[in-house]
């Protein structure tokens, strides 16, 4: 109900927002999350079709009441143009990961097979490592990383989720 400890389920939410591309805007949003103690699972930001506007995709988690407050607080910021919670809509979600896997001549083939299965690319090779570029939904990227764990992941860089609403919603 009203308290911060509630029985409602904590869920992951994907929030897409457009903001004025001003100095300090990103800082203000990050500061808002920190100050209120909200979670940021991932945050991406980049330019849009309009030079003066940036799009941010934030993945956060919380129960319904917390998510409602997050949405309202983000909307309240002066530089926020629009905030949308994509979670309950159908949306395209993509993420890019660069995974540097430990490989030996013996394991190299197997790693490349896995990469092929996931339709990812090998972008770097060295005597001891293979670097794979993986793009896809968060689920797919999680899955390939899991598969590669057993070989030993030397370094991992993930961008975090970028999302955009689908124009044709669900079934016709």
């Amino acid at each position, binding site marked *: 109900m009203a308290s911060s400890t509630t029985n409602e389920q904590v869920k992951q939410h994907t929030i897409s927002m457009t903001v004025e591309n001003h100095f300090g805007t990103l800082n203000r949003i990050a500061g808002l999350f920190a100050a209120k103690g909200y979670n940021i699972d991932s945050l991406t930001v980049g330019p849009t079709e309009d030079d003066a506007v940036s799009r941010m995709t934030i993945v956060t988690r919380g129960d319904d009441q917390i998510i*409602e407050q997050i949405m309202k607080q983000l*909307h309240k910021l002066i530089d926020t143009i629009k905030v949308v919670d994509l979670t309950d809509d159908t949306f395209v979600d993509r993420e890019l990961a660069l995974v540097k896997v430990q490989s030996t001549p013996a394991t190299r083939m197997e790693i490349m097979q896995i990469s092929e299965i996931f339709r990812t690319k090998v972008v770097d090779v060295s005597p001891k490592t293979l670097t794979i570029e993986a793009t896809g939904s968060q689920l797919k990227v999680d899955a390939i990383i899991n598969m590669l764990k057993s070989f030993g992941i030397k370094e991992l860089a993930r961008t975090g989720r970028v999302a955009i609403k689908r124009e044709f919603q669900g079934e016709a």
Partner: protein
Amino acid sequence: MTPTKAHDNHQGKLMTGAEIFVRCLVEEGVDTLFGYPGGVVIGIYDVLHDLTHIKHILTRHEQGATHAAEGYSKATGRPGVVLVTSGPGATNAVTGIADAYMDSIPLVVFTGQVITKLIGNDAFQEVDIVGITRPITKHNYLVKDVNDLANTIKAAFYIATTGRPGPVLVDLPKDVLAAKTVFEYPKTISLRSYNPVVDGNMRQIKKAAELINESKRPLLYVGGGVISSNASAEVRALADKLRAPITTTLHGLGAYPEQSKLSLGMLGMHGTWYSNMAVDQCDVLIAIGARFDDRVTGKVEAFAKNAKKIHIDIDPSAISKNVPADVPIVGDVKRVLKQLNELVKPLDTKEWLNTIDEWKAEHPLRYKQDGSLRAQHVIDKLGEITNGDAIVVSDVGQSQMWTAQFFKWKHPRTQITSGGLGTMGFSLPAAMGAAFGRTDLPVVCISGDGGFQMNIQELATVAQNNLPLKIFIINNGYLGMVRQWQEFFWKKRYSHTQITSPDFVRVAEAYGIPAQRVSLPAEVEGTIRKALAHKDGPMLVEFVVVPEENVFPMIPAGQTVNEIIDSPEPLEQSHATNKTMIHAKG
């Protein structure tokens, strides 16, 4: 005080940033500027030297300047404007900015900054004030190009004064102030990313009216938003039409005349017994411009547990933040009430009001009368003598709570205090600011001995400007509110709450301010009358009160009305004050 505009048409002229800055203030109708000069803002001060349209008040600390701007704003309804220099000037303003943020006061604070090339270089008197104040401003700006200056200032005033008001900071590097460009002040402003909703959703308003019209025990819970929105006439119309009792928060005091029969005084931690009980027993709670702050709600799950809640506020994020609203209405309070008042019908609240009357008779605000001087008596007398026709600016602590409880609030914009942040040292500079803004009513500053010492230096500003300010110090030799908590919850271990002060009367006289000391109840009335009659300049009165006295009632933090601690004074021997009884005897 009506602002004067310089219509000598500076548009289209080539000017320095400093000149543009000043011209923008004139365009915005600013008549008073509170500030303190420094290296990076000398350029602006040079322009101010010859200017007659804007009065600049030199305070003795930048914190004093910001609190003065707050007091000015609360008293007049206009934005408070501050000008300070970089580095320590800016950081000294932080407390006042945070205070304005917590209490939603429209403030535009201009800070000087080092030249753009040196920003981030640990230059002399440089701080990242934009970074520091990001969480405590409604918005802030760093102007890097003189061509953006006029637009930024226009935006700053627009943002500070619309929607839920708040402080906006504009950082001005020295080279931007020296650079030249053609002055063009935008006639209108529109920000695509900021469009506060002012008109309430009609469907929601109808829903609220339906709920109210079925209510048997309605209660109005009125907060500072009503004052900001200048909606006290609409609130009064609603309460009177419904015949509904009304309680206010600390910042709502003055929205509804307390001498009126429906008034229950303040609610919350130190609110009246009967207002807190009314909240608990009402069936419809109409929250107007209030934010369900923890000082009001106590244990949030138990607050107004028997009532459906209607919440009218301009800030959507305040609605259902702490307490879920059954009927939320986002909009400007004045506009929403105008529409709501058309749809509600007079209610039969006779039984409800009778019950409340009984509570008022059994649990009035009261204090001991044993011949020693008590703060409550001083406030009581002040209220009686002025009949509510005064602006009272209080500090923070016990004296603040007694002022809220015992003064007879009558008009909006007469109750000024630091609520959300609770900043000690607020009252003297804020009262100063109020006195600059209002000359129609006497301005009285009420402060404890602790708080008074925090910004005591502003006595010089008061004296320099010969403000007819009445300064009342309630001196009990303690940081009273903390001492009270130590008495109740920490086994009377008065750790560092006993505090010494200078002889305030001699300090005032050293500043050139006439002063008097009062230590007997019999002296109170005469001295207050004398202070109020003294209109040629400031006057200070020190009231030496009993050292240990407690504020009652009290609902300890996080608890419910069931745990309310009423005054231990028996009714017969104490001085009981009920601002009003709803029905006369019989």
